[in-house]
């Protein structure tokens, strides 16, 4: 497996495992469950999981794998980074009656708030 492939798969796996865990769906998914989740063959995924365990991102648990602290931090961080540029709100996404239209300063504050997901109309 190539290093770039491993990096890409690692991000996918860690993000999926973090999401599954945070939603209460699975704490220690096995290769089959993860493969179904990511829509890839389990046989393809298994060597990667072993590698990520060796690198300290996962640990074997029950019949599957659990995120280590390092894996959990990486999963959460890369999830946010992956979509940061795509989903950053832009001015004009608010409703017409949003207070951010009152002045450039209010608009700037609105953008900051939305970026932190604290903005609700």
């Amino acid at each position, binding site marked *: 497996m190539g290093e770039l492939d491993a990096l890409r798969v690692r991000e996918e796996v860690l993000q999926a495992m973090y*999401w599954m865990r945070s939603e209460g*769906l699975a704490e220690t998914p096995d290769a089959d469950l993860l493969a179904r*989740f990511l829509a890839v063959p389990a046989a393809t995924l298994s060597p990667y999981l072993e590698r990520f365990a060796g690198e300290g991102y996962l640990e074997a648990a029950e019949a599957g794998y659990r995120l280590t602290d390092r894996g959990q931090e990486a999963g959460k961080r890369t999830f946010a980074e992956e979509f940061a540029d*795509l*989903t950053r*709100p832009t001015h004009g996404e608010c409703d017409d009656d949003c207070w951010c239209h009152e002045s450039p300063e209010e608009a700037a504050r609105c953008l900051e708030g939305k970026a932190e997901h604290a903005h609700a109309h």
Partner: protein
Amino acid sequence: MRMPTEPVEPAVPRNFLRPCLLLLLREQPAHGYELLERLPPLGFGRDDPGGLYRALRALEREGLVHSSWQPSPEGPDRRIYELTRAGMEVLHGSAKSLAAGREMLEVFLSRYGEFVSLAGAGDTARQRSPAPS
């Protein structure tokens, strides 16, 4: 004439999960698990969270959905999803398309109903798992 009833797979548009998720998020922002819970009335089962996960990621890549971490008092932070303005526009387009399709379906079913009664066919419809979008 009445035909024997068997479990029926509902015929819905391809990628029907997408407008359904946009609709659920139009109603209110939600976590993944909550979306899974709200999908069955729209004909989807709860047994494929992976399909939901992939669909949400695809919607987010397309800019139709925005998500952010929401701190959880117990356990890890959870991802909460909300509709973007672009998502709202796509949802509206989907709804108009579905409405146009419904008119054609009603004509078809009305004309077929001249030959065979389909009463009860909807009661036997099976729930589907979220398919990859």
